[in-house]
């Protein structure tokens, strides 16, 4: 029964875990669904159209590019789906759908594929695309229409020293981008990813804690009416804008975050400080996207100084 010429040869190990890159990306996409669903509920049909537009054009761009370049088509690894979905969640529902599509083309083509495809991009493609759109179409990208009226986001109110309703920020019934408003929906997805072992607390934990401490201290310098470590002020900052979506879903992007454990902590702290700086002392009320893409660029440096020591050579036992 043994035909020797059919025996397969390979280097050990001869067994493999069942997890594949595709499974992982699919889990991330699933984890984004609560935020997406709430976004559609909150912003109605335009939000749905935007999400479909960004996701479909991201996948299509990857497919066409790879076909055109005679590369292996990798759209079944779900990474383009995640990029498209994330970009959609970072768009205002009031922006035209073609703008989202343009962003997806930029993110997949310029940020991801031209640098070598999956695993080679130096910054998060969805955020790269968002920042590209922010610079190109500043007006439409920063106008948030809620319930038919255009108004400031709670974060903008906060920066202007006006009161905000933290409860509605927690639930998400506020103006903002499609996927960033509901803290609860985002946390549900994040808990799923933690339970599935896709992400851990190192990056999002240090990011959020550092940011909270930063605004706790420096909020006072931005607005003298705010005391040090004012819990309401800190809560409003944590629930407002893109920090939750950014910390749990974009700062944790494997490709653009450090692979070293210590490096992940450094990265989280850097994100917290940069976000705090941009939000409190920057020109606009928001700063998560820029904080993340700037930190993305510093990842190689962070890794270089945080290489672990091997076991038996003074390293962690």
């Amino acid at each position, binding site marked *: *029964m*043994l*035909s*020797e010429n*059919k*025996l*397969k*040869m*390979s*280097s*050990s*190990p*001869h*067994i*493999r*875990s069942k*997890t*594949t*890159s595709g*499974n*992982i990306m699919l889990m991330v996409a699933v984890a984004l669904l609560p935020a997406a669903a709430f976004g559609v509920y909150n912003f109605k049909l335009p939000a749905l159209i935007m999400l479909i537009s960004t996701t479909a054009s991201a996948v299509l761009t990857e497919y066409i590019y790879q076909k055109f370049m005679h590369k292996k088509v*990798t759209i079944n*690894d779900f*990474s383009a789906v995640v990029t498209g979905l994330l970009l959609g969640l970072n768009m205002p529902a009031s922006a035209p759908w073609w703008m989202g599509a343009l962003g997806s083309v930029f993110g997949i083509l310029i940020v991801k594929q031209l640098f070598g*495809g*999956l*695993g*080679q991009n130096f910054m998060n493609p969805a955020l790269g695309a968002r920042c590209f759109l922010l610079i190109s179409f500043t007006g439409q990208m920063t106008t948030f229409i809620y319930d038919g009226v255009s108004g400031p986001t709670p974060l903008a109110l906060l920066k202007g020293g006006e009161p905000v309703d933290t409860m509605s920020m927690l639930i998400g019934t506020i103006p903002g981008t499609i996927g960033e408003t509901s803290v609860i929906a985002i946390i549900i997805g994040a808990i799923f990813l933690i339970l599935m072992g896709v992400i851990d607390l190192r990056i999002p934990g240090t990011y959020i804690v550092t940011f909270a401490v930063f605004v706790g201290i420096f909020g006072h310098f931005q607005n003298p009416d705010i005391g040090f470590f004012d819990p309401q002020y800190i809560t409003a900052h944590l629930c407002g804008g893109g920090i939750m979506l950014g910390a749990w879903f974009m700062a944790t992007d*494997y*490709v653009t*975050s450090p*692979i*070293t*454990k210590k490096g992940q902590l450094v990265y989280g702290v850097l994100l917290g400080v940069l976000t705090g700086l941009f939000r409190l002392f920057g020109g606009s009320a928001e700063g998560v996207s820029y904080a993340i893409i700037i930190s993305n660029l510093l990842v190689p440096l962070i890794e270089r100084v945080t*290489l*672990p*020591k*091997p*076991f*038996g*050579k003074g*390293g*962690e*036992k």
Partner: protein
Amino acid sequence: MALLTFKGGVHPDDGKSLAKDKAIVSVQPKGDLVYPVSQHIGAPASPIVAVGDRVLKGQKIAEAGGFVSAPVYASVSGTVKAIEPRFNPTGAKVNCIVVENDGEYEEVTYPAVKPLDEMTKEEILNAIGEAGVVGMGGAGFPTRVKLSPKEPDKIDYVIANCAECEPYITADYRRMIESPEKLVGGMRAVLRLFDNAKGIFGVEDNKPDCIAKLKELTKDEPRMEVLALKTKYPQGGERQLIYAATGRAINSAMLPADAGCVVDNVETLITINRAVTEGKPSMERVVTVSGNAVNAPGNFKAPFGMNQAELVEAAGGFKTEPEKMISGGPMMGFSMFTLDVPVTKTSSSILGFTKDEVAEYEPTACINCGRCVDACPSRLIPSRLADYAEHHDEETFTKHEGLECMECGSCSYVCPAKRPLKQAIGSMRKIALANRKKK
């Protein structure tokens, strides 16, 4: 109390239920016996028989070729048919002594042995060296050399590696269940060599029956202790075992003796026991034959030199055609292109699988997820080391401690992109080690 263990590692399906409850069966060879003169690390043994000579079971047919070497004994009686290169289980062609079995099993008279208490340390060491005992867990380091550190008084622990962390293999498990007294006997002999040492049996906690048996057997042995270790691969790796049992950490440039430890696995200690108490040489071992392609998986006491195809026959042959055959465990063993190879001192198992999981997946791009970093017991960054290896960047590879890799394969196992990380790192290590020797 948290279980003793190390950081990193993986939890593959252990597959041990296939052969776990199958008692050890002694098998006799039918065809020719093939004895490689190199079944150990170090200089090959030199044949001392010629073609046409009649040999007896237990007769020395090749003597140690140097200090780091080990003699080889015939495991049957018969006639030397050839001395020629043949394939060994790792796929290399090595010089082998081929003996035609006459089926009579005529045995030599073994020299009388003194009781252990009356033997000097030198006599114990000689008995072990003369018997051709080598590390039978896979590395095959001559045991006599391992038991002769520069300063024997500085050895604090003799650790019996009873972890058997490789999936599917149950040979050591059956040994511990069926003849724990022989294992303890081996430990007693080794402890005689090290006056200040304590004997530790490190057993993974998936074998509570072994732990109970060994505890019962050693309750009146003040110098011996049984430790339950967390079930995790590679718990039986030498560095991981030493750390779990003693809290001491060694790197690739150090020997266990540098941390005051000596580690021997179950089969080795049982062979030591036989050499010291019966004067019999190393000529047989327990081999697990398992995997989903095998008809009746089990554990077999097989003489060295026996054809592995015969051993698979003893396990009822194949029920389904195997796509992959492995000598050793699925994590660190070697894939085989033929079963026409002998059982050697380091053959712990023969596994047959109907499907090759490696061929099932196509490697894709690294997504930098860091699962290999979490899994690496040596605390390296396997994905980056594999990159350096693929780019033939030996300098960066060495600078980033690629030589500390012990090739346990945990990184390749967990990689979601299914990259052959261990393969790339292992190849570069060989090149770097060879270049280092040249300098």
